[in-house]
């Protein structure tokens, strides 16, 4: 099994529970448990090892045009030092992966992709997408840097204070911006004001060999702020409460970004991108499905793949579900028929292992933080 460079640190923490996450041996939770870790991020701060994520460096002539073509969002509008969330689509409009794009300079980008998709994405980006076979296009250099980087996420309302004790520029770093030359524990890091929890926070990228030093430096700096190490379990419940999509659940090759209600990250008005024609067509024909939120009226956890009904009518399926630690309710995301007259407050049914359980359509996100976010 793959292990991140931080394995030696967290595998020594008493009470850590390690699981196989897509071929990676990673902590699902520490001694404190998923719910306590979730609440630490909502109230104080949590530290996550997310080094399993993949990083591709796209560099040299052609990069600006190539990355703009590769993803759904308007990369041409980015300034240096900006971070952007986007979808990478097939010509069909289905999703190859969702990713975070860092614009370092003209014709220089860092693409951060999902761990389980690294090989598929690398093949798509370097060989398989239509740009590659078009002789009139300039192909930039693409290097898979996934093993060269450790990625650490510091998340929560107290994240800024913790970062500030190590780097005076933390407060000024705006949401979805980054700085490539932040020194933490003597190590130069790329620090962005980003995250996957719905809270304020930072993500740090640094050379793999220095991962342990920076992790320990952050843990020490966060001691008084209540910073605790957090695992993948809390990462999942945090992102779900905030309705942040997870590839393989809300996004797949068979779900378009429009169906996943991510049109704000799809720039249909600007330049061409892979999948744009299909998405324009889908919009013109009527988007067939929609991602909605539910809260269970009957008890039970709506888990991914469960069918969703209204009477005898199959409406769709659950994409993610959990007990929300903030709401103390069972919540879920469902991919359901659009145009079926479903309204907020309507009662639908989830088939939980053969038993129909009632659920109510609700507004999303389930939880929205009220703290500072520039």
């Amino acid at each position, binding site marked *: 099994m793959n292990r991140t460079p931080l394995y030696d640190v967290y595998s020594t923490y008493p009470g850590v*529970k390690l699981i196989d996450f897509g071929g990676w041996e990673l902590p*699902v*939770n520490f001694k404190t*448990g*998923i*719910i306590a870790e979730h609440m630490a991020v909502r109230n104080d701060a949590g530290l996550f090892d997310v080094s399993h994520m993949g990083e591709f460096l796209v560099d040299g002539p052609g990069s600006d045009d190539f990355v703009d073509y590769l993803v759904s969002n308007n990369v041409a509008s980015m300034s240096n030092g900006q971070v952007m969330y986007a979808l990478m689509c097939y010509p069909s409009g289905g999703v190859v992966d969702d990713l975070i794009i860092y614009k370092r300079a003209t014709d220089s980008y860092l693409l951060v992709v999902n761990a389980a998709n690294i090989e598929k994405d690398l093949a798509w980006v370097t060989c398989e997408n239509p740009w590659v076979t078009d002789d009139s296009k300039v192909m930039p250099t693409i290097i898979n840097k996934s093993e060269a980087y450790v990625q650490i996420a510091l998340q929560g309302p107290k994240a800024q204070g913790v970062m500030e004790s190590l780097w005076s520029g933390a407060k000024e770093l705006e949401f979805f911006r980054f700085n490539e030359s932040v020194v933490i524990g003597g190590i130069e890091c790329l620090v962005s004001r980003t995250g996957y929890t719905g809270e304020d926070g930072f993500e740090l990228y640094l050379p793999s060999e220095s991962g342990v030093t920076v992790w320990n430096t952050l843990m020490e700096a966060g001691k008084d702020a209540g910073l605790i190490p957090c695992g993948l*379990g809390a990462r999942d*419940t945090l992102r779900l409460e905030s309705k942040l999509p997870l590839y393989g659940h809300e996004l797949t090759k068979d779900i378009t970004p429009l169906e996943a209600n991510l049109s704000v990250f799809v720039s249909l008005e600007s330049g061409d991108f892979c999948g744009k024609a299909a998405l324009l067509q889908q919009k013109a024909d009527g988007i067939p499905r929609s991602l909605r939120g539910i809260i269970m009226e009957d*008890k*039970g*956890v709506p*888990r991914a793949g469960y069918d969703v009904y209204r009477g005898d009518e199959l409406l769709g399926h659950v994409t993610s579900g*959990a*007990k929300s630690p903030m709401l103390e309710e*069972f919540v879920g995301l469902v991919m359901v028929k659009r145009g079926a007259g479903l309204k907020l407050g309507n009662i639908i049914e989830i088939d939980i*292992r053969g038993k129909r359980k009632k659920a109510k359509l609700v507004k999303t996100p389930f939880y929205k933080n009220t703290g500072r976010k520039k």
Partner: protein
Amino acid sequence: MSEVVKGLLYSEDHEWVRVDGNKASVGITDFAQAQLGEVVYVELPEVDDDFSKDDEVSSIESVKAASAIITPLSGTIVGVNEDLEDTPESVNGAPYENPIFVIELSDESELEGLMDAAAYEEFIKTL
């Protein structure tokens, strides 16, 4: 180290059994709750339903996954622990004080197929 309580019987599905006459209380073991992680919901079986040994009677949901609750004994459900509806996490905190259901046995000879505490302790060491 998982706690194993003497005087109880145990199944390979990690349920504990406390026999009282022709009835038995059934819960999940400390080993099982640790494997499951934080329990968020215990679905209780229906009183008066009949089950055969190894039937799935209901389910238990942790933060991570849903798992079946298997009855290690045949019979009729005569009681359920309704406290678990509101405080499912007590299965994590005190697994041996929180049975999930009580079953009236239809075949007491099935008790001979269960392990005692010493045998169960050995059994979980092999896992």
